[in-house]
Structure formats: structure tokens, C-alpha cells
């Protein structure tokens, strides 16, 4: 399970975490990707990075499915706190509350947080 906690821009964590997810998919692993805290912003539609000169990689999250990664979880509390809904996101996700997310983490062999 990969846990994305940070906004898509401002630090490189989101981009480099996405690279880990894609490679994990290539290795045929049972990969789940979680978006929590400001990490939920990684999936928002209509990102425009032109003025900050960084790569807009938000569309790449759609490629996760091609890599066999279909378990995408967004933490409900983080989404609500930021006034977002699933319709604001670039991919289909499962919205889970913090308690359920904790249970899912408990089931994992490995949790990598970024």
C-alpha cells in the first residue's frame, strides 16, 4: 500500500510516489494507493502547473489502471475537509473513512508513505 499525504506540487513526493506505484504495478504486486490529508489534491481535475514550471502529471493517475492498479482509496475526512467530492477527481476511487483506512492498512504486508 502506498500512502500519499502531500499536495501534488510544492514538493516532489507526489510525483515520485506515482513512479513507485507504476513500478510496483509492473512487478505484479497487489497494490493499493491511498490519498489522504493534502494528498487528495493529487487527484483533482483541471490542474494547471504552467505558471509554476512543474510537470502536470495528474493525468498519469489514469494510467494506474493499465498497470493493474485498481484499488484507489481516498480518505473521506480529508476529502470533506477540503470541500471536495469524487466528481472533482480524475479517477474513480473508493471513499473510505479513517477507521476503515486503518483496518485496510492493518491488512497490508508493506505500507510505504510519501
Amino acid at each position, binding site marked *: 500500500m502506498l500512502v500519499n499525504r502531500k499536495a501534488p506540487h510544492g514538493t516532489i513526493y507526489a510525483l*515520485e510516489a506515482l513512479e513507485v506505484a507504476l513500478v510496483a504495478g509492473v512487478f505484479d504486486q497487489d497494490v493499493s494507493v491511498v490519498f489522504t490529508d493534502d494528498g487528495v489534491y493529487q487527484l483533482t481535475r483541471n490542474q494547471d502547473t504552467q505558471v509554476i514550471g512543474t510537470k502536470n502529471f495528474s493525468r498519469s493517475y489514469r494510467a494506474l489502471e493499465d498497470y493493474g492498479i485498481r484499488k484507489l482509496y481516498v480518505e473521506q475526512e480529508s476529502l470533506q475537509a477540503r470541500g471536495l467530492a469524487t466528481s472533482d477527481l480524475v479517477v474513480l476511487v473508493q471513499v473510505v473513512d479513517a477507521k476503515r483506512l486503518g483496518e485496510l492498512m492493518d491488512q497490508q504486508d508493506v*505500507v510505504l508513505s510519501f
Partner: protein
Amino acid sequence: MRFAILVNAGPYTHQASDSAYRFTRAALEKGHEVLRVFFYHDGVHNGSRLSVPPQDERDLPKLWRELAERHCLDLVVCISAAQRRGLLDASEAQRHGKDAYNLSTAFRISGLGQLIEACIEADRMIVFGD
């Protein structure tokens, strides 16, 4: 126990590299196996052979080097993270037409596959970062 270690933060800015180093050293001294230490994000800077901290400060890249020599540790920096940040070994420097390299010989450059493999093979993957 077989540990794998992921270091996500650079030396000095964050304590994470110190904690990772101390954890790795303690695990080895207790007789555990550390099958790989993987350096990602700014963590790749732990592999620099050119760091020169003040004399009264710890030299983390040197500490990693010495630990690796003592225990035959596999220290791996992610190639894409390293290249972004200007950390190259001799052959990568040559391949990209650069006039110098700065990765310590105690470290090797490889891909993210080495991180995933370490996750699969280790009993515990421990992540250090901010």
C-alpha cells in the same frame, strides 16, 4: 529478522537519515539482517562522496560508507531520483557527458524495482522520512 530500509529525506535537513542510520546499525549489531537500504527523494544525497560537514559534526555519508564496508550492506540510490538531483556514478556521468561524478563507491545506482523487490523479500520494510 530481515529488514529493508527506505530513506526518503536528505541528510542534515531532516533527522530521518540519522534515524535510518542508527536503526540500521542497531539492527545489524543485534544480529538482524538488513538486505537493502534504498535511498529515494532527497535521500539520495546520503550517497554523495563529496560532502564536507564541519569537523565537529557527524559526516552521515561517511558513516553510511563505513557501515556498508563493515557489514557488506547493499546501499542503493534510485536512478531517476539521483539523476534529477545531480548525483551520478562514474558510468552514468560518462553516459550523460558530464565531467564529474559524485556517488560514493559504497553505493550503487539502480531502479525502483530494487525497492519493490526489497519490499517483497524483507520481513519488515521500515520507512524513514518527513
